């Protein structure tokens, strides 16, 4: 997934050792790398789901705005912050390339 307008385009993909199941209140991510389970509530669960099903960045923003009832700016911030936290937790891998 690339972010339009950024100097560097970042592509993210799910870490290969992460799998997930759908739970009543969100998702449960299982990180086989460190044997940790990571429950995701809403709206984070929706973001993970939308990213994993191949939506474009524009689609993710549009859908997350509707799901989380946020402004466009707040939605973009939420997406960026959440994805960053997932990268830090080893759930997402970021591959930077020149834009």
């Amino acid at each position, binding site marked *: 997934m690339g972010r339009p307008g950024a100097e560097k385009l970042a592509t993210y993909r799910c870490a290969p050792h992460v799998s997930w199941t*759908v739970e009543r209140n*969100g998702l449960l991510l299982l990180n086989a790398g460190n044997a940790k389970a990571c429950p995701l509530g*809403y709206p984070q*669960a*929706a973001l993970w789901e*939308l990213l994993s099903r*191949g939506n474009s960045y524009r689609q993710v923003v549009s*859908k997350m705005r*509707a799901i989380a009832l946020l402004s466009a700016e707040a939605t973009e911030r939420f997406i960026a912050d959440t994805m960053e936290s997932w990268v830090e937790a080893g759930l997402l891998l970021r591959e930077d390339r020149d834009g």
Partner: protein
Amino acid sequence: MAGSVFVIPVLDRWLVYAPLHHASALVNRAAVCRLSEDRVQPEQEDLASLSSLIRSEPPGVPQPREGLVSPQFLGLIPTRACNLRCVYCGFGAADGGCEVMDMALAVAAVDWMAADAQRRGRATLDVHFFGGEPFFARDVVEVVVHRTRAVAAEKGLVPRLEAATNGVYDEDCARFIGDYFEAVVLSFDGFPQVHDRRRSAVNGRGSFEAVARTARILSQSPAELCFRVCVADDNVDHLAETVSWFCRQFQPAAIDFETLQPTSGAEEAGLRPPDPYRFAAQFHSAGRIASDQGVRPSYAAALRETPRTSFCPVGNDTLILSPEGRVSACYLPKQEWQARGLDLEMGRFTVQGAMELDRRAIERVRSLAAAKPRCAKCFCRWSCAGGCHVNQSFPGCPQAYNDFCIQTRLITACSLLAELGADSLADRLLDDRSAMEALALRTSDALEDCEEADG
């Protein structure tokens, strides 16, 4: 007692059925006479206790709804458009337009329903999708699914998502449905030659392969999968083999059989509704095969545990939101109800979250559940409840039983016999056309009208 105790002829026996008392019995003609004339001897203990039960006030007579609107579920039609051109379509897919529900409207409706469910102390937040083909507007469905789950989690409700679908989409969409929906009704008419003849894509290609693939994915998912089979004159004699194959290949939770609703498209394609007697007999045999395989057979108008006054969303306060924000009691296109002289519209919903319901319209729709003169003396009145308000029990519909009534009466009688452990009597009934006609065409089943038993 009037209108709540029925007697039904089954060959040389009589089925006494009191749906509101939850009682049924198989008796002979003399017993019916005694019950009818209230001259049961105390020493006939079983009959005396039945007589006493059916002469008591029933514990609860279902009534049309009153008071504030209390929807059991929110119905959403994300679009009227569809990727198929089924020959018998009654949902106006060909000219349904391509309007897609605004995501903000859909989300506002879910939030309204969640607030209503919480206010009423309900445990679940129920959202059902209808079409067109709902997944033809997949973006809207995705947003609604996640908003429903998000708001349900926030309010301590259990999200319950259901959809009626044609199953024609990619594997990813099928997996999404399997992951997030509690129940899916998948239209699947059976073997390729039957299914493809009836349910082709816009480009004319058959849809069997895609539906079978979706069925396989859904059958392995946590979603409860129900196949909906349209039964016409070309497949009524193959229901048993269709069911065996379905059970073997897909193991759905349920298989629902509904007869073809005549449309001009169906007529042009040479499809006609099945003979109702044949349908009842074939449903019975196919249903037994399904049950033996652990698959639940169903028919929308069939016997059920709780008596009801309406068989569909109409009269049950269900709010169904169209793509453009109209709120109605029925998911069929407006022109279908208007052609029957019905107005099932109840108001509108706005993107700002305002549910603007018309009080008089609600009362008008609710009153339809009570206005079914044809059903007054039919033993199925509290289970079938007149069937579809648009296609079967519309204002001014003929008083005589139609094919739907005939098959429903036979299927219901056989279910009652099965409950009484009299399966072999049901088999004999379904093997005897004149006995079936005697049961199906009887104008009044009310015990108080029973004269034949004396004859």
